């Protein structure tokens, strides 16, 4: 695991002149990845609520049932525990399920199956019943949706032994991380930042394979979304683009912020975190989920452990509050906004020992 400069910016992509670049929204990039997964792996199955003819409420599975048939892409009854339990049984039968939970908050009825079964079947069976299940969960807030249509479940899932958790920040990441997750023999919770579904960006469709081996730097660990030297903003999902905005603003004042896109929330790229923060010597972790026992606490602990001697200030956390995700009208007060992140940066930069 190591961080690498991500190649989602136009500048870095243009260096790879021969590679196919297409402009896609994240929703389109995931759709494209799913199609390629179904094409390449005849044991892969997509199912969930409204994922068939409708193409999902976010249209992420649009056209896949028409293309691959109703055996490969099918609607289930409206019951999330049933979706997960069925996925586990299909995995036991040798399939590679890619179920969709329609909205993050609807994962709660499935949490029993996720924690007591999906995450443990490989362990319980001593490795004889692997669970190559990629669970897609449209995640986080920012779209003014009803209650439970915007939740941040990463610390819940990251706490469960046996699960891996990843969240892409842009179409390029989404396309490659999903293909990678679906190739993994372990359960992966794939948290799609729904607020970023419709933002378009260039996607480099080359599969990052050299000599048949996956270029691990492209799909594993964290990436530096923007290099800087005064402090590291650590974020994932939709907060990465917000941190990039913050870095842009800070640059006007001569403050060079590094933005680290953590991507994998379990396992966390400890070496990547350490490499960045030991250079910048200051860290601010930003997430939408509630503060207490949020994943920022884990990140802060890891950074403190690995960078204690070089840190110039305590690791700052800019997060949601310990309140339920509020109604859309108050969402901007809850989700870390540019001002709150800048205040966090300021606290870190102004910190003086003693």
């Amino acid at each position, binding site marked *: 695991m190591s961080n690498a400069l991500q190649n989602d910016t136009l500048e870095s992509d243009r260096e790879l002149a021969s590679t196919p670049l297409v402009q896609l929204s994240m929703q389109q990039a995931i759709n494209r990845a799913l199609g390629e997964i179904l094409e390449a792996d005849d044991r892969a199955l997509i199912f969930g609520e409204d994922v068939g003819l409708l193409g999902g409420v976010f249209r992420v599975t649009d056209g896949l049932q028409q293309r691959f048939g109703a055996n490969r892409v099918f609607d289930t009854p409206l019951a999330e*525990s*049933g979706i997960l339990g069925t996925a586990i*049984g299909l995995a*036991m039968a040798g399939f590679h399920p890619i179920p969709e939970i329609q909205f993050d908050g609807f994962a709660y009825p499935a949490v029993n*199956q996720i924690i*007591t*079964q999906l995450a443990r079947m490989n362990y*319980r069976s001593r490795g004889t019943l692997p669970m190559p299940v990629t669970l897609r969960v449209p995640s986080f807030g920012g779209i003014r949706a009803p209650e439970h249509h915007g939740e941040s479940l990463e610390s819940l899932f990251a706490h469960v032994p046996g699960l891996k958790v990843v969240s892409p920040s842009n179409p390029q990441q989404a396309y490659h991380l999903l293909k990678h997750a679906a190739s993994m023999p*372990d359960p992966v919770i794939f948290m799609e930042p729904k607020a970023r579904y419709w933002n378009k960006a260039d996607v480099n469709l080359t599969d990052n394979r050299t000599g048949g081996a996956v270029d691990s730097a492209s799909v594993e660990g964290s990436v530096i979304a923007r290099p800087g030297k005064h402090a590291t903003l650590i974020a994932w999902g939709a907060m990465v683009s917000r941190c990039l905005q913050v870095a842009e603003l800070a640059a006007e004042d001569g403050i060079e912020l590094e933005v680290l896109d953590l991507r994998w929330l379990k396992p966390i790229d400890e070496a990547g975190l350490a490499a960045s923060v030991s250079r910048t010597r200051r860290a601010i972790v930003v997430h939408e989920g509630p503060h207490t026992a949020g994943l920022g606490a884990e990140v802060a602990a890891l950074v403190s452990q690995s960078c204690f001697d070089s840190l110039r200030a305590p690791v700052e956390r800019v997060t949601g509050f310990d309140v339920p995700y509020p109604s859309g009208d108050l969402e901007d007060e809850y989700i870390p906004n540019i001002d709150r992140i800048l205040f966090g940066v300021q606290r870190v930069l102004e910190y003086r020992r003693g």
Partner: protein
Amino acid sequence: MAPRALAATLDTLPPPVLPLVEADAAGPAQLRDLYRMLSNVRQLDAAAVAWQRQGLIPGYAPMLGQEAAQVGAGAAVDTTRDFVFPTYREMGVAYTVGVNMVDYMSTHKAIWHGGLYDAVATHFAPFQAVVGGSVLHAVGWAHGQTLNAASAAETALGVGLAFLGDGASSQGDVHEAMNFAAILRAPVVFFVQNNGWAISVPTEQQVAGGSVAARAAGYGIPAVRVDGNDVLAVLSATQRAVAHARAGLGPVVVEAMTYRRGPHSTSDDPGRYRTLDDEKIDGGEDPLSRFRSMLLAGNVADAASFAEVDAQAQQQADEIRDGVVALSSRPGSEMFDFVFQESTPTLGAQARQWREESEHV
């Protein structure tokens, strides 16, 4: 009150498409084999309770009284293509389908949660402690058989057998499983052992309407409610159900009315919620003595042959005990080894730290 097993029958399973080998027509050899399995299961169950009292194993969930239900159901399983999804009280099914019983008992010795037996090779899913937790897995697995058949043009489907009890029938997952199975037309048999008790709560306070099988109608699923203490009745009902599912006609609910004659577990005290008189009346005649009477009446076996089989069963239980005694702890490194197929750097670091700090002592 009448014994529970004699509760009204229900049978909405249509006649088989292909004629079955009827259990009623089972030959003397098969009947004697069924008795052999019943006797072995009875002896092993009693032995496991004794092992707990002796301190050999920390706990066990006895199945006394449910031998006919479990042997009858297990004998209908084709382990070359079907798959059993058990709960934590299916020792008799495990024995009947040929699971290595030392490896099975390892879970009760607290060696490994899921047991040490090979679930894939034996077509018997890992020991399941979550009530109703594996019922949906049977549906998913069974749907997988349908999908396999769609691509391979097979006609005889593997059948998933989901085992659950009257207590589990209260779980939402069981509703979801039956609904999914019916919608997907999955080859599943939901085998319900209605044993009258979910720890201390009787079926009357557990199952609204009084019957899990009766609920099947709401899903458009055929159901059979059978005397679960009659091994031939259970075998016949399960064979019919499996044949129905195998033919691609969808799921079936079998509700075997039986009685948990012992405690919920070796930690339980039934004296706090039922009397010995209750147990005598509600339990009815012991399923083994019933089958013995039938075999005697049919001149299939005699007292001497029963004594011989029972002695062999005792010997086998003793051999299994030796195996359980010999089971050693798994290495602590296995805590880390089986979390993932592909471990993580974080977990690897924890494993290294565990090793260094445990070897230091």
